[in-house]
């Protein structure tokens, strides 16, 4: 089975702190994604990466950065956490450019509270 593992399930951080959310997948997927999910807004794409050291902005990249130094690992970084970044963060991965379509596999989510 595909496994996408997010390092922390629940975090509480202070305003202004630098926050790292880590994600690891074990299926040799090329694509990795970070979404945030808020009530009534669904999932919004923050960043995605289609290869090591490659990244693309999603719909809401402001206040976030990412790092992909190894194929299996994709990190989301909040340079200076703010209360409006309190949310559930979902990491996901998929193969790239499959003609049959790219099924996405999700981690269990990280609940971040910024106080």
């Amino acid at each position, binding site marked *: 089975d595909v496994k996408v593992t997010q390092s922390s399930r629940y975090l509480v951080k202070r305003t202004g702190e630098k926050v790292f959310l880590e994600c690891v997948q074990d299926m040799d997927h090329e*694509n990795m994604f970070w979404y945030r999910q808020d009530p009534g807004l669904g999932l919004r794409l923050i960043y995605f990466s289609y290869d090591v050291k490659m990244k693309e902005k999603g719909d809401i990249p402001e206040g976030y950065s990412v790092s992909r130094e190894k194929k299996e690992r994709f990190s989301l970084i909040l340079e200076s956490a703010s209360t409006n970044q309190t949310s559930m963060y979902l990491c996901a991965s998929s193969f790239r450019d499959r003609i049959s*379509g790219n099924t996405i596999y999700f981690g269990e989510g990280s609940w971040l509270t910024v106080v």
Partner: protein
Amino acid sequence: SQQGEEDPQALSIQEGENATMNCSYKTSINNLQWYRQNSGRGLVHLILIRSNEREKHSGRLRVTLDTSKKSSSLLITASRAADTASYFCATALNNNDMRFGAGTRLTVKP
């Protein structure tokens, strides 16, 4: 911006009834996918339908796709309490970066 939009936002039915959820999208697609999310958990892939397909079945799930109307529907037949979850449609702008809608919250009452 959101690519898929689900309708209704919430749906409540009795066990044994059928549940229908709709999804509309804005641009041309290669395929459309439906996902399920149990409360507080990650999303799980249910079914994928390609742009050249009109209907697809998987167990109690039936998905239709109308590319002329840019819409899809997910039908769950003979619903069970365990089907209670949120359901999302997803489309890829370029077959890689997937976008999701806000989801339909389905409640199946025993």
